[in-house]
């Protein structure tokens, strides 16, 4: 019981102190750029969890989900193909490294040329930008499948689709998840950026609108909303990852303690 309380105290202590500090420091703030936290929170609840939730937050999240899902499917399939063949890997690795090194937001102007300014463009921007870390990590994970494990599978006649399902994908999954995690943060960034350029709704669009019209409390609240979204997605990701990689974390612990 005391253990739980202690953990709770440790987890909540600093955030409470920080929030309280912000609250009191800004309480009587007359600084135009730093409105009182109470105003920001009010705006967060009234605006962002009010009408803007359906109007802006949901469309953003849907585009994010579509783009990310597209990237995941394409990159993992391509990654398996590329990772399996030494020759293909050799041919494509520098090309992929180059594409990965391009800061994804610079693609927004180009994709606007190609795909216009609709939802399609935003989904493609998100997908194209976040696919490289996923793709390269999948390639690396597939390449590094343990040789003994691979021999074992061969001697038991595990080939083709079964090999992919029972050996290659699970073996590469720690790497793939590392890529997926990086890809997710890139995807969130691109969700916002793609809405800054050409959009009529969305979180990024609304925050910048607020900023341009000098609705300062709403701008701060929008930033909090973005932070909250990032945090929640990271949390969700962690839950999925912990489920899928339970074996891996267990294996690592076992190796470290031995």
């Amino acid at each position, binding site marked *: 019981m005391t253990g739980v309380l202690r953990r709770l105290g440790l987890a909540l202590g600093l955030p409470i102190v920080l929030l309280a500090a912000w609250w009191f420091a800004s309480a009587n703030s007359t600084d135009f750029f730093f409105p009182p936290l109470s105003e920001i929170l009010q705006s967060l609840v009234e605006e962002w969890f009010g009408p803007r939730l359906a109007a802006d937050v949901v469309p953003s999240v849907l585009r994010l989900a579509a783009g990310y899902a597209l990237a995941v499917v394409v990159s993992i399939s391509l990654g398996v193909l590329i990772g399996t063949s030494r020759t293909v890997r050799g041919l494509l690795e520098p090309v992929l490294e180059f594409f990965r090194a391009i800061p994804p937001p610079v693609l927004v102007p180009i994709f606007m040329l190609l795909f216009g300014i609709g939802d399609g463009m935003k989904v493609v921007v998100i997908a194209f930008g976040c696919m490289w870390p996923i793709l390269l990590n999948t390639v690396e994970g597939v390449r590094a499948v343990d040789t003994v494990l691979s021999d074992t599978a061969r001697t038991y*006649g595990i080939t083709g689709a079964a090999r992919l399902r029972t050996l290659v994908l699970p073996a590469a999954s720690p790497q793939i998840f590392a890529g997926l995690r990086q890809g997710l943060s890139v995807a969130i960034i691109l969700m916002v950026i793609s809405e800054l350029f050409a959009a009529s709704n969305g979180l990024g669009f609304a925050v910048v609108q607020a900023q341009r019209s000098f609705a300062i409390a709403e701008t701060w609240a929008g930033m909090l909303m973005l932070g909250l979204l990032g945090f929640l997605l990271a949390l969700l990701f962690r839950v999925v990852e912990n489920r899928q990689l339970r*074996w891996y974390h267990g*294996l690592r612990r076992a190796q470290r303690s031995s």
Partner: protein
Amino acid sequence: MLDVRGIKKVYESKDRTVEAVRDLTFTLQAGELACLVGPSGCGKTTLLKIMSGLLEPTSGEVLLEGKRVEGPPPGMAVVFQEYGRSLFPWMTVRENVELPLKQKKLAAARRTELVEESLAAVGLAEAHAAYPWQLSGGMQQRVAIARAVAYEPHVLLMDEPFAAVDAQTRADLEDLIRDLWHKFQVTTLFVTHDIDEAVYLGQRVLILSNSPTVIRDDLAVDLPDQRDQLTTRSSPRFAELRARVYEQIHRAKTPAAEPVGAGATALPTSADHGSTEF
């Protein structure tokens, strides 16, 4: 049953050529338990990989029940030395044993039966739901053995399976192999670098030379069929056999001390020269 005919394996890389296996020929009879022993680095693993169809020989062939081995044959199971890397860490013990059976398209009831029987046979009836990495090294190797046995192979190949476990566990596992062999009557080839282990386990011991490898000796082990760690290992006959194997291996390692019957090898890198003497 299992014929190895004139196997030769030469590894080539850019700047050197290594003749790992020169010329190996032997036959395993059905139901036999043979041990293959040789000095470290003598190409045992290469040979085993060729026999299991994982590696192409440079020349020669392996026949399993009269059929030429090209790629891993269905009737063969292999237990590798690196138990930690041959079990699927994302699968439980049960799933690990069951996987090859699923691949063989066995019915679920039959699979369950085989999994339970083989895990019980290796003394792991309680560990179905554990992950391999939750078990000790010896237990992990037991799982790998159970998986091989459940597969109902015609031939079981074991590549130094106990080289990485501690001495006590090793003795237990050796007895386990004898038991399983009695119980399932599988033709077994057990590769080891441990002379005592080879003599203790086998009905027959094949002694390999240093690389490039040839067979130096093919020794029948006339110890009683029921063996146990204490009495068998302390029997005079065990000591004699052990000494004989030791002598062969020792000579294989110090070619200078030996009446050379072989031509010089074409190997610039290897200081050791093989012998074709049997």
